[in-house]
């Protein structure tokens, strides 16, 4: 089998799983369907490993540089000789990296779900949705064309909608699914307009043509797009900010983050796959794809990305410290970590020594996928055993759930950035990049990083310590190997993922980049991380009233953070009070009175008219002939008069 076929097969295997389980699911026994999905995904994982090996060690390398490898090119919608929308698959360092992340986490989640979703109604449907999602996500990362990416972008949105609303008998799940769909759809409007502006300016939708035309200094396309300006920003800056709005919607950046915490209504493995490791980093991937254009053509847009990321990182970390539902804590943690990735991209620039942030952000994406998926799967195992999402129902679980305990601890250490776990390396790279270029973002990131260690260990101690273990606890670990093995494999990633020389593979220019780890930079973040872990241990290891007293001291600030800084309420105010009243009501009035009125008046007029003249049709034959005869006579008279 040639490499081209292998690459094509990777997204097609999950599609096959979706079609098989979705169309023929009724004829496949429930026990079998999960296995089919997992085996197909496992095959895709193996193929991606083969592809990654081939790409990084033979076909992708030209000299010391990685170059894109294109395959399966198809001229799809030619508009004119100049502009067409093509389909195709591309391998380059970031898409191969995403390929590995998506297939690995997806396979783990498929296997884990064999245990977690056992006995669920619609088990087969669940697996077909997972297949659809994985297909769309793989299509998204392999797209060569921004329009093709947009198509898959919407497809992941749909599968996310289907999976959040999987328990559709719960009204809250339905509401959450709708919210996720509407918020991301709203953001995608910006994305679409951005795409059209880029296409209009560069006469192409192809990523590499776009990059070539819009990031080469002196190119005529670049000059046109940066020449025209609106409200003090160039067309290109506007286009990229609009594209970023789409990315911010999917990646749950402030103020479009409101859907992600609610999305936790879906099954927990889905949260691990879609809302932690893969779909929500699509925004990061999008910015990384267009990075040369951002960096060369519109540094202002990149600065916006940086500030939005940094603010969101801190904002979400603050909220995560106050939540009591473990999945909500993890959701806000995800938002915060994606903020880290984006501000890492935002502080990067173009030119020697400035691109470190690019590699750092994607490195964090890579490590985050494994430890955050692990945290979610651990949370799933706990919820499976305790039958509750609330922290207060847990506590003292370290004895009864040893494997979950250890893996969760490893993931918590990784996300806190404690050496030598995976998160340490990527976070250090981010901090080092930020410190060099933007001190403000660096300090904001540092505070957010400290809070990260605090909230995750608050979670850890509340779940596994806090109360004395119950001697006859009923919530022991159910010996589900299907659930434990993926957690162990992910734990391996969370522990050792950082030792991969990531800069050798992924960099903005394609040339290897050394990510420096200097002792002087390490001390402060790690020291703060350890301090906050100690603080969390003191506060939450045993039951005490100290946390409550701190809460009372903080007063209003705590309440605001607990209520998620009232962002949802602001949205409700804007939609219910302003949008509905100012736009919805007049539109409804117009519809009811003008549109409906016209239609109904036409109908009633016709009825009145026909009532008035219906007597003519009497059913009397001789009356009809009389009319006829009268008509004939009339014509005769007319003819005679005319010819006379």
């Amino acid at each position, binding site marked *: 089998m040639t490499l081209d076929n292998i690459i094509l097969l990777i997204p097609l295997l999950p599609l096959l799983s979706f079609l098989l389980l979705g169309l023929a699911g009724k004829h496949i026994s429930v026990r079998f369907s999960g296995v089919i999905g997992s085996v197909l995904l496992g095959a895709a994982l193996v193929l991606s490993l083969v592809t990654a090996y081939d790409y990084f060690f033979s076909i992708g390398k030209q000299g010391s540089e990685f170059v894109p490898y294109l395959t399966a090119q198809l001229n799809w919608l030619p508009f004119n000789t100049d502009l067409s929308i093509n389909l195709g698959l591309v391998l380059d360092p970031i898409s191969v990296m995403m390929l590995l992340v998506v297939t690995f986490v997806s396979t783990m989640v498929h296997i884990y779900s064999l245990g977690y979703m056992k006995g669920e109604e619609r088990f087969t449907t669940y697996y077909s949705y997972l297949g659809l999602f994985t297909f769309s996500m793989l299509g998204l990362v392999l797209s060569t064309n921004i329009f093709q990416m947009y198509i898959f972008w919407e497809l992941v949105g749909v599968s996310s909608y289907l999976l959040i609303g999987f328990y559709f008998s719960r009204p809250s799940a339905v509401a959450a699914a709708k919210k996720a769909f509407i918020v991301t759809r709203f953001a995608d409007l910006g994305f679409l307009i951005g795409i059209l502006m880029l296409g209009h300016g560069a006469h192409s939708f192809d990523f590499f043509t776009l990059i070539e035309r819009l990031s080469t200094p002196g190119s005529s396309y670049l000059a046109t797009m940066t020449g025209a300006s609106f409200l003090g920003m160039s067309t290109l800056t506007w286009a990229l900010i609009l594209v970023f709005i789409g990315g911010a919607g999917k990646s749950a950046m402030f103020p479009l983050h409101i859907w992600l915490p609610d999305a936790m209504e879906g099954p927990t493995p889905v949260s691990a796959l879609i809302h932690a490791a893969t779909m929500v980093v699509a925004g990061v991937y999008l910015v990384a794809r267009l990075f040369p254009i951002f960096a060369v053509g519109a540094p202002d847009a990149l600065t916006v990305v940086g500030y939005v990321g940094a603010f969101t990182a801190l904002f979400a970390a603050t909220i995560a410290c106050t939540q009591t539902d473990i999945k909500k804590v993890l959701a806000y943690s995800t938002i915060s970590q994606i903020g880290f990735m984006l501000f890492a991209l935002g502080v990067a620039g173009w030119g020697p020594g400035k691109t470190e942030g690019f590699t750092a952000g994607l490195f964090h994406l890579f490590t985050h996928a494994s430890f955050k998926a692990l945290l979610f799967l651990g949370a799933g195992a706990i919820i499976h055993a305790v039958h509750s999402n609330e922290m207060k129902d847990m506590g003292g679980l370290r004895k009864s759930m040893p494997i979950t305990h250890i893996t969760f601890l490893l993931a918590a250490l990784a996300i806190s950035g404690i050496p030598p776990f995976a998160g340490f390396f990527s976070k250090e790279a981010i901090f080092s990049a930020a410190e060099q270029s933007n001190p403000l973002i660096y300090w904001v990131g540092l505070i957010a990083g400290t809070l990260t260690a605090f909230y995750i260990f608050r979670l850890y101690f509340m779940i596994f310590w806090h109360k004395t273990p119950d001697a006859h606890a009923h919530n022991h670990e159910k010996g589900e190997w299907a659930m434990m093995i993926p957690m162990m494999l992910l734990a391996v990633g969370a522990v050792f993922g950082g030792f991969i020389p990531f800069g050798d593979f992924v960099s903005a220019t394609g040339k290897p980049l050394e990510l420096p780890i200097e002792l002087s930079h390490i001390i402060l973040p790690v020291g703060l991380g350890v301090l906050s872990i100690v603080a969390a241990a003191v506060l939450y290891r045993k039951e005490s009233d100290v946390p409550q007293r701190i809460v009372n001291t903080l007063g209003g600030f705590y309440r605001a953070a607990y209520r998620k800084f009232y962002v949802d309420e602001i949205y409700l105010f804007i939609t219910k009070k302003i949008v509905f009243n100012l736009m919805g009501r007049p539109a409804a009035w117009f519809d009811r009175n003008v549109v409906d009125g016209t239609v109904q008046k036409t109908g009633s007029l016709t009825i009145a008219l026909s009532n008035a003249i*219906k*007597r003519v049709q*009497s*059913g*009397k034959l*001789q009356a009809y*002939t009389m009319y006829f005869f009268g008509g004939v006579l009339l014509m005769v008279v007319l003819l005679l008069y005319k010819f006379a």
Partner: protein
Amino acid sequence: MEQVPLAHLLILSSALFFLGVYGFFTRRNMITMLMSVELILNSVNINFIAFNKYLFPNQLEGIFFTLFIIAVAAAEVSLAIAIIINLFRKFNTVDVEEVDTMKF
């Protein structure tokens, strides 16, 4: 031999025609109405023959038309009788006033 003037024949056919129309409008019995229609047709036949004879004596179109009309009228009568029989079976009458269900 002196011929009958054309005007006489036309007066005859007109009289026949209006008799037919009058009968068609005033009689309630469908059979009688059918007979009135036959009168109208015959008045037309007389017209054809008369014009053929007086205006184009060397041609035969009018005569042929008359033959056609007689044939068609025969067919039409058989059809009309069939309809009337069916109506009689349904309404138990041949009074045209009673047969007025096809209305608004």
